[in-house]
């Protein structure tokens, strides 16, 4: 469990990191928190010839909480985002999800951008990105482009990042609806493991408790986490009773195509998706109603 030989360089600016990526392309990997990359190298599952360390680039660690959006650099630490009350007030799903991400020790080092770029189908932050419709800013030496999360993820551990691109920023939309609630839940064998299935939801209601806006999604039950915007739309305009929530949740579950592994069969994953979506929708709705 020792990594094969590689070259290491610590970039001091985004420009330098992108230039290095342009130079080494396919053979290079960006090192952020290293919580997935380093073990995979130790297992010799990855053989990068260059590691480009972005941990000392201040521009990748900023956090900006604005009225309509929370913006952060890709190298913002998970622990810092989890502790940030301003973020929790605007995009509460992030804190809710982060409490399920690994353990305190891994969150101290792990980054938001690293988790998104790693794109584990069971990981929590990619699911939140799908549900909230986050935008990801991808930077290359001579170009910058922005992708919505729905276009960023392309498969298990796969994204649309090109070999010469570095994930630079993540923009999390803020819902300005006064009565907004959110909820994250997952089932794993043990706390801190990758989820067998995870679900996240955010709901806004009017003063009559009618749903005005809804978003939800499921992770761990397919090649990538998915949001269900069309099904969520069915909730809008209703007071959400058990039947409405149940219907939407089990339609979502039926649309999933999960895999089997030693911890869960496809049938169990689909079942858990139905249960968990029902629960997060219910709990997000209750939270929204409870806002004064």
């Amino acid at each position: 469990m020792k990594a094969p030989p590689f070259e290491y360089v610590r970039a001091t600016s985004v420009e330098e990191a992108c230039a290095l990526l342009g130079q080494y392309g396919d053979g290079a990997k960006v090192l952020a928190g290293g919580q997935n990359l380093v073990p995979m190298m130790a297992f010799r599952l990855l053989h990068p010839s260059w590691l480009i360390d972005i941990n000392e680039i201040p521009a990748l660690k900023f956090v900006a909480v604005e009225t309509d959006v929370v913006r952060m650099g890709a190298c913002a630490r998970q622990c810092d985002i989890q502790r940030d009350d301003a973020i929790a007030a605007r995009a509460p799903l992030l804190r809710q999800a982060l409490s399920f991400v690994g353990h305190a020790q891994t969150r101290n080092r792990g980054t938001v951008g690293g988790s998104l770029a790693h794109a584990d189908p069971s990981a929590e932050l990619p699911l939140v990105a799908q549900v909230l419709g986050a935008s990801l800013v991808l930077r290359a030496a001579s170009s910058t482009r922005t992708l919505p999360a729905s276009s960023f993820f392309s498969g298990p551990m796969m994204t649309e990042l090109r070999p010469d691109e570095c994930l630079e920023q993540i923009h999390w939309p803020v819902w300005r609806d006064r009565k907004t609630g959110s909820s994250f839940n997952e089932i794993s064998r043990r706390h801190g493991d990758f989820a067998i299935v995870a679900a996240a939801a955010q709901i806004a209601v009017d003063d009559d408790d009618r749903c005005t806006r809804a978003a939800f999604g499921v992770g761990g039950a397919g090649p990538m986490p998915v949001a269900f915007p069309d099904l969520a739309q069915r909730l809008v305009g209703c007071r959400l009773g058990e039947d409405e929530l149940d219907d939407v949740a089990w339609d979502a579950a039926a649309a999933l195509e999960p895999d089997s592994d030693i911890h869960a069969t496809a049938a169990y994953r689909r079942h858990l998706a139905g249960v968990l979506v029902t629960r997060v929708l219910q709990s997000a709705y209750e939270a929204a109603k409870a806002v004064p």
Partner: protein
Amino acid sequence: MGHAASPSGFRYIGAKRRTKEDPRFVTGRGRYAADVALPGLKHVALVASPHASARIVSIRTDAARALRGIHYVLTGEEFCATTDSLPIGVDAPKVRRWSLAHERVRYAGEWVAAVVADSRALAEDAAELVEVEYEPLPPILDPEQAMVDGSPLVHPAYGSNVILHRNFVWGPVDDQFAAADHQLEFRAVWSRSATVPIETFAVVGQWNPGTEILDIWASIQMPKFPDQTANALRLPGNAVRVHYDIDVGGSYGVKRGLKHTVLVGYLAKRLGMPVRLVEDRLENMRGGDMHGPDRLFDMKVAFDRDGTIRALKIRAVDNVGAYAGRAPFQLGKPVSAICGPYLIPAIAYEPVAVLTNKTPQEAVRGFGQAPTNFALERTMDRVAQFLNMDRVALRKTNLIRKEQFPYTIPSGSTYDSGDYHTVLDKALAAIDYPALQRRRDAARQAGRLAGIGIATCLEPSGGNSAFEPLLNSKNQTTTWMDSCLVRVDLSGSITGIMGTSSSGQGHETLVSTVIGEILERDPMDIRVVHADSLNALPSNSPVGSRMAIMLGGAAAGAARKIKDALIAIAAHNFECAKEDIAYRDGNASLKGVPEKVLTWGQLVEIAHRKFHAMPPDIEPGLQAKFVWEVPTGGGLPTPDGRIQIYPCYAFEAHIVYVEIDPATAAPTIKQYICGHDCGVMINPDIVHGMTYGGIAHGIGAALYEKFTYDDNGQLTSGTFMDYLIPSALEVPPIRIVDHCTPSPLTTFGQKGSGEAGYLGAPAAVANAVNDALALLGVELNELPLSHLAIFETLCKTTLNKRAPNKRPT
């Protein structure tokens, strides 16, 4: 530091006192095998078989050898020709094993070649360049299939996959079955798990051509390790020096790295360089040969309508994997407590050990007793359920009563002492059993699945491996001694010297406490060291829950000799009889004349310096050794297979409350209590620590841990992402209720406790989950009771089927 006084008339024994070794560990000052940094140390990496079964067609090592910094690539062809195969416990000499495979691989992960390099990373680089051509063969993984004629043979030269098969009948089993009101049968399955210490196996070897001694530093826990290493390397026993002062970072049985050590010893001698092998996690999990029992039980029980158990028929089939060292003996230790704590007059036991293309097993905590206890306790619950009888009442009907001790069970072992009813009652009272039942019933009313589990189990202790002659008539080993040397130096300081390594059991605290108790000197001032194997008195190492009894007894015996010598010196100088000497706090005075006293310092000085003041029959200096055979040990089995195995029997009564989310199938342990009686506790904190850890380990076996294999024989849970050990977040607060029934056989009344908790927790948790499932008319008798297993069991019920059109389960 404050020391609470001992409750039982002892000065130090049983008192709540700080341990001696823990400060070193919690401040990071332990010294482990991987800390041994020798000049010029070289590092080993291994080439492992990707196939579960294959013929090795060729091995090409030139590309690996061509890398800079590579010193050697060793293959089985050279190694097997120049070393002897490793010992095997049962009588199957054609099942041969070396550290490296030769001509054939028998499990995925088996070592095929070893690379020696300047660094471990370089060695791994070179290992990737070793080209092995295999001709894959069909693997056999299922033990019942492996027993069928015509199945692929793991060792064709042996001619069968069944390496051990016995039929024991103790008592009138058939008569009891015929006379009983009822009988029932079922299968219980204990899946392959282990202890998985954070420290993998590590060994450093250095050959000195001047002294012709091979020095070994290893994270070892096993008896006869230096002898077996020397034998395999064709060296005399006194050419191998094992340094037992190395801290071992966890074991509970699995640190038996004989194959690692023989390999490293061979390379160190062959190359003339110090060589180190530290397994990485995958090597440890896949090829470290540290898996535990993998066992199915076919249980038949005969009982009357009042709950009296009349007889048991137990068939236990264990999948021991591709090779067999001591592992099949794990079917033998349970003979020592085959009826558990119950009055069962007749038992048939059919142990079968089967070879397959899985990783070989090694000893794991309890040595087969925890699986057996699980099967016994599931049996008790099924009988209670059949009779619609309270499970506590059923157990109380069948538990051996206090006044029946010493009690000889059908298989020949005599239980030393116990008060099982009282311990169970204390546990029930401590958890407020009626309130717990109300809590469970209220949870059920609220729609949750809830269950209470009870298990009453034994921990055989004292490490007497009399199952060896029982299961192998060519093996007549009946000696399982342990020893201690106690020295008092000229300064008056006391040193206790033990002859084996420790893997977290607190032996330094044990030995110092016992010596302090006898000599009435403060244990904190008594040093305890580990001799190397060329200096050591004989030890059989901390196996089979034996050290409190055996090392504690040996230390006490040696300390008593010191005390006797001090009294003799005083009597000689006071010209009185030894009986007239009063010994107190290390000083010796003439009884009734307190001013006539020789202090500890004066006595020590006489012993070391003043030969003229010594009595004629006492050796000068002040040291004493004591070598002790296991109490009740030394016997061979009768022709019908009755044998006294372990001397002492500790008892534990577990009560656990579990809730299961009916929608997600996720189980949560809400309450846990363990009543425990291991006789006199030498150090209660150490006993409680062992028990907490044992329960956590048992929760792992019950709910989480399993070495899973796919159909091709590939281990699919070789990392901690998939082999799940419970963390602090999965283990609930645990309350332990102590009780003390002293053993009449041991020095202070102590019994063993190294396996405490683990021997009953899996059974208790399984019974709790099944109590929750019973209302739905389903049961689950295969560990671990994973989320998925519980879900699939719930799918057999009407639960979760409210909207079948939308729930495609």
